[in-house]
């Protein structure tokens, strides 16, 4: 692989996968979910 391709692959991974990881951490910390409750599928 060329250097440019390697750099762009790493950038893509960092931005997209890193962004997902940050988003998951953010949502977990925000912790505003409702308590588990069983909904009936009526």
């Amino acid at each position, binding site marked *: *692989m060329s250097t440019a391709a390697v750099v762009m692959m790493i950038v893509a991974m960092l931005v997209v996968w890193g962004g997902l990881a940050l988003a998951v951490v953010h*949502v977990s910390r925000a912790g505003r979910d409702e308590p588990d409750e069983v909904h009936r599928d009526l």
Partner: protein
Amino acid sequence: MSNQGQVDATGRNARGGFTNRRVFMLAAIGSAVGLGNIWRFPYVAYENGGGAFLIPYLVALLVAGLPFLLLDYGIGHRYRGSAPLSFRRLGGASAETLGWWQVGICAVIAIYYAVIIAWAVRYTFFSLDQSWGDAPDEFLFGDFLQVADPGIGLDFVAGVFWPLLVVWLVVVAVMVAGVQKGIGRLSVVFIPLLVAAFLVLVGRSLFLPGAGAGLDALFTPNWGALTDAGVWAAAFGQIFFSLSIGFGIMITYASYVGRRTDMTGSGLVVGLANSSFELLAGIGVFAALGFMAQASGVALDDVATEGLGLAFVAFPVIISEAPAGAVIGVLFFASLVIAGLTSLVSVIEVVISAVRDKLDLSRATASLAVGVPAAAASILLFATTTGVPLLDTADYYINRFGILVVAVVSTVVVTWVYRDLDPIRDHLNTYGSVRLGSWWVVLVGVVTPVALTYVLIEELRAVLAEPYSGYPGWLLNGIGWGSAALVLVLALVLARLPWRASVDLSAPSQEVTR
């Protein structure tokens, strides 16, 4: 059986729902991650600047994809209904048409989408002994699908009929089981399984000879592409089609989520998870294509392809030539089946939810009332020797002149006619962990419709320049334009039919009582 009398804490008829946010997010990811992530994104990126495509792609995700996803979430979560009921509560009888338009589009998509899953089921087993032999192309269109000239016939292909019947039995069973016990459980089990299967597939592909050349082709940036408006249109188109936005799915799913749920944070996770899977798919697919090019002694450009050609012609070649190819085959086609199935249930749920709301039916009754006719139409139209041209045409037109058009119209109407973006933003901000400012209103009300209109015009130009795939006029006009027009006409009619008296058409109170 009616739901009357079974009311939730807000005084409305209970509709069922996801048990918690995690299940909702997995279901939404399952909907967004579909066949397009695996067989469309890699080629679109490769064709539109390689590594440089990342820039327009991320811009499109941030300025249009995620904002639009949050609009869908906001509508469904605020108005607590299927697409027609949500739009009815948002803007009255005329707005309800938008919801039925989306429902019609989903009905069309569901009946052909199931067929591709049935093909993938067969190919999972074909992979074990490489049934396609030395000529995957001839095997696909000849031996397996027995494709005849374009037409509408009833010559059934047994090899498609039976797996398609099984797919529909599974789908109907999931839908009857309900939102949590059916869709929720399916997503909780299969989405992690899909990611695991694809990780193993990518790991195997990366160690094939020639994989580096494939990744080189995918990621080498062509910066000159950034000045090409067509590349930007491709990025917006990819983001739009990939996220399952604009045609009712995310409205429907959001209506099944608890009132205090953080929808903006959830949207961020879902949007980025979808893109993460696309990136993973791009790496896996192009590593495999690099191997194929090297093994065949041709340039990568000669083997790079997308869609049916990638899945059912190129991958069989890779499976036949790679060491332990059967493993690659089973993982690849099983991934297609899972990705397709979790998307299909979300598409058909739009229709079931709408019928259920309008007629105030029970879950099981609505699922059967929608699922059985959809299965029958799917089998009658597409499990035949004439099914492939019909499928190809319906898919091409309903995506462009169904989904794209309703998306543009709905953003414009919600923003400029009903002026409902500010209330929706306030609603999302009430419990959202990512605060939406006035920038969100500008992105949804101006940037997104302008970008999608440009994409639409480009598509219109392409389809008017030459007949799609060289198909005859009757097919393109009757099935292509016909299906796109029919769903709009049906929407106009259905929006004028009365609701059951037991259905509350007023906007829900914003007070949370539980």
